[in-house]
């Protein structure tokens, strides 16, 4: 989108490091076909909160016409990163890459209030970067969730007073066991052996979705796959990359590439759409860094093997389950599966294989508002986006809502609870697991 009304008289507001370049943003021809696909545009109705408008702001900043100030940061922050605009875009604009780089510039050039900075540092560099620390804090949270304290705090209305009630409602229920404990373990294939896969357990996945990880292992085993959980694996770095903390994301990416290299396997599998899309993007992520010429080749190898679990099972041909379920369900496309990885039919195929009758909702690929930590940071907007989603969900009148990403599950569960719908929220793999 190079035509602005003024020539560019000023220096760019961006640094050279992780810069959203003219080559990236000039692919946008500002046709506007993305507008209605954007959740924030649908709710707020302004250009600043649209994909085309965000790209224009990036261009303005690069031309030195718009400072990296509060306005720029607000609008770039508000993007959910759902990438529905990439699906809609006829010009093939790499919107995700543009916005992640814009956020990297914000990290370099904008000072957030100290509390926000501290929380971001604690979460991204502390918890998600260090699984020992994550386990320690997860145990504390589990203790809190099961203690009299949680009940007392809720009853006291303190959370409401500090505006923390929605956050508490969204916090995942910490699992009884953590997946870390199985790192290094190998789970044998059942029936005729069809290959070997390495599973990424995930950060939130390990502490809040351990039962899902176990179900994933069982389903893979039942499909004749040997499953390993490589030791030394860590967080995929998706949240860091989305937040513009690309150096931290790179460290995590290098770590995972090293950890998974130790094992020969046919595929690197994840049950979280967000992790899968981030890992498939490791080549682009590491291309930006000079110290990664060596890693580049291994990154290519790594990326070639990354598969969403639904994608891999559909590719392989899922074994017919022993106890097909006679259920009606609706399926919510996770954005990072449908838009980022263009996987739509695989999860539906698996559900049908499990005996589920699919009742499609309107706009199954509209974002639910979860978007990583978005629902915690942008509580109100995420809530409005969720309302739109729950209207479509409720209209199907089924009592099983299935998706394929952990973040979406948390958000959809809070949506179901808020409306008091008689509905369960499950992962595709959990449904399939029940049928085996």
């Amino acid at each position: 989108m190079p035509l602005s009304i003024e020539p560019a008289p000023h220096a760019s507001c961006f640094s050279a490091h992780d810069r959203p370049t003219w080559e990236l943003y000039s692919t946008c021809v500002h046709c506007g076909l993305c507008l209605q696909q954007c959740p924030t545009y649908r709710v707020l109705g302004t250009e600043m909160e649209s994909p085309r408008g965000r790209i224009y702001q990036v261009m303005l900043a690069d031309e030195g016409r718009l400072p990296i100030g509060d306005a720029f940061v607000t609008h770039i922050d508000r993007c959910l990163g759902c990438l529905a605009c990439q699906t809609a875009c006829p010009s093939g604009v790499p919107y995700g890459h543009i916005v992640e780089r814009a956020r990297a510039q914000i990290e370099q050039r904008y000072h957030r209030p100290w509390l926000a900075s501290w929380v971001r540092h604690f979460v991204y560099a502390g918890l998600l970067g260090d699984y020992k620390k994550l386990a320690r804090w997860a145990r504390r949270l589990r203790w809190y969730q099961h203690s009299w304290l949680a009940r007392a705090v809720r009853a006291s209305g303190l959370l409401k007073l500090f505006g923390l009630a929605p956050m508490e409602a969204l916090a995942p229920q910490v699992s009884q066991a953590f997946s870390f404990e199985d790192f290094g373990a190998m789970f044998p294939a059942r029936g005729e052996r069809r290959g070997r896969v390495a599973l990424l357990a995930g950060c939130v996945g390990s502490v809040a979705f351990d039962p899902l990880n176990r179900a994933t292992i069982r389903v893979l085993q039942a499909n004749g796959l040997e499953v390993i959980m490589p030791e030394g694996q860590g967080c995929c770095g998706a949240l860091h990359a989305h937040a513009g903390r690309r150096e931290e994301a790179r460290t995590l990416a290098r770590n995972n590439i090293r950890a998974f290299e130790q094992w020969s396997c046919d595929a690197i599998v994840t049950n979280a759409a967000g992790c899968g899309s981030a890992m498939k993007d490791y080549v682009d992520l590491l291309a930006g860094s000079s110290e990664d010429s060596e890693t580049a080749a291994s990154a290519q190898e790594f990326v070639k093997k990354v598969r969403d679990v639904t994608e891999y099972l559909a590719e392989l041909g899922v074994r017919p389950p022993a106890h097909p379920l006679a259920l009606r369900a609706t399926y919510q496309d996770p954005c990072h599966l449908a838009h980022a990885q263009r996987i739509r039919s695989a999860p539906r195929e698996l559900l049908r294989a499990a005996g589920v009758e699919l009742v499609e909702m309107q706009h199954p690929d509209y974002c639910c508002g979860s978007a990583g930590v978005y629902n915690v940071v942008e509580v109100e907007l995420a809530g409005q986006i969720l309302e739109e989603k729950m209207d479509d969900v409720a209209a199907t009148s089924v009592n099983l809502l299935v998706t394929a990403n952990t973040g979406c599950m948390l958000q959809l569960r809070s949506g179901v609870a808020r409306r008091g719908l008689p509905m369960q929220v499950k992962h595709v793999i959990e449904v399939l697991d029940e049928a085996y």
Partner: protein
Amino acid sequence: MLFASSIVRQLRKIAGRDAVLSAREDLMLYEYDGGVQRALPQAVVFPQTTEQVARIVKLAGKEGVPIVPRGAGTGLSGGAIARKGGIILGFSRMNKILEVDVGNQRAIVQPGVVNLDLSHAVAKHGLYFAPDPSSQKACTIGGNVAENSGGPHTLAYGVTVNHVTGLEVVLPDGRVVQFGGKPAESPGYDLTGFFVGSEGTLGIATAITVKLMRLPESVATLLAIFDSIDAAAQTVVALTSEGVTAAALELLDGWTLRTVEEAMHAGYPMDSGAVLLIELEGMREAVDDQKAAVIAVCNRLAREVRVAKDESERQRLWAGRKNAFGAVGRISPSYYVQDGVIPRTRVPDTLRRIEEIAKKYSLTIGNIFHAGDGNLHPLILFDSRDPAQMERTLAAGKEILAYCISVGGSITGEHGVGMEKSEILPLMFTPSDLDVMQRLHDVFNPACLLNPQKIFPMARSCRETNAAAHPAAGLAFTQGGPA
């Protein structure tokens, strides 16, 4: 230049705090639309009711400030650009379908309703809204009314004006008037017809009564593949002169179809010289007969004719066509879409002329157009960082339009005149023709505050009122600059 804070305050009072933008960093996001023009407004307001629109218009009149309505900003002629500054009325929050009258096949909608959303909303009744511009998943019906938009199916069903029977309009003095209604015909002057296509220069439509068409019983979509563009062009003439009425008849030349195919995987063969995308609609038996006739005509010159087997193949073929402009963005940083009309019998020689013009200016020009009604969309590629190339692009565009006029055509089929073509309007009309239009304009918009400097050439535009309507008159400004 930013507005005096008193105007912003009053706008906030009318529409609400969060419905007014006045900071420079926000306004810059309203300096563009889908085309190539740019101009900065001084405020953007998002009204939610007709009454708010009327009050805003009245305020603008009192302060002598221009008003520019804007739907989704997908237009290509600069219709939604605040050329003289002033207030942009953004309709993204007036997007309700007010009434669906299934029995009478009418709907009443607010101007911000997205074109395709209306069709989706009434599909359960077996109905749809026929005008189908390529931007239909984003563009608004208000914008369609302003530009009198067309689309591929214009060939069979006509443009927007043929599908609007009534309007609620806010006049520049703040009065709210009704034109037409649900009946197809209303007594007296056809003000509805006059208003549609007026590009926001006569009044602001706040409720639009549209016709809904019944979804056809049967649809057949064909792709005729040719080795040369000439053969495709000849076939267009043959098809239309031999009494086959297609619902849509689209042509893509070799360069364009390859670009589109790479982006969209629509199923166009990469090695062909041109394709025709043909759609037939109606009763099953009639469609079958027509299909046989079309295939017979195409086979004279076509390499192959394919018929879409199912809905998903049909959708794929159309996705290629509808996303074509954007697909060009993959290979060129900028492009200029022309919108000319020629008699369809002149398609072959016009295409040859465009090829000559491309050579003359050393430019790449792709051709994609509604061949059935002779509405051309030459796509001229350029790099805006190269001013010389940009100049050649504009010159080539002008030469194509001059040729369109010389063969008895027109300078715009559906994108509107806007800013883009106002200076060449006199090529189409005599001074007397223009005078009549100007006098009609002045009856509605005497102070020239509604979408000023659009349609008419600058020398003519609001001659008497230019001085009075200039934003410098009667306004105190605060200094502009990033806040």
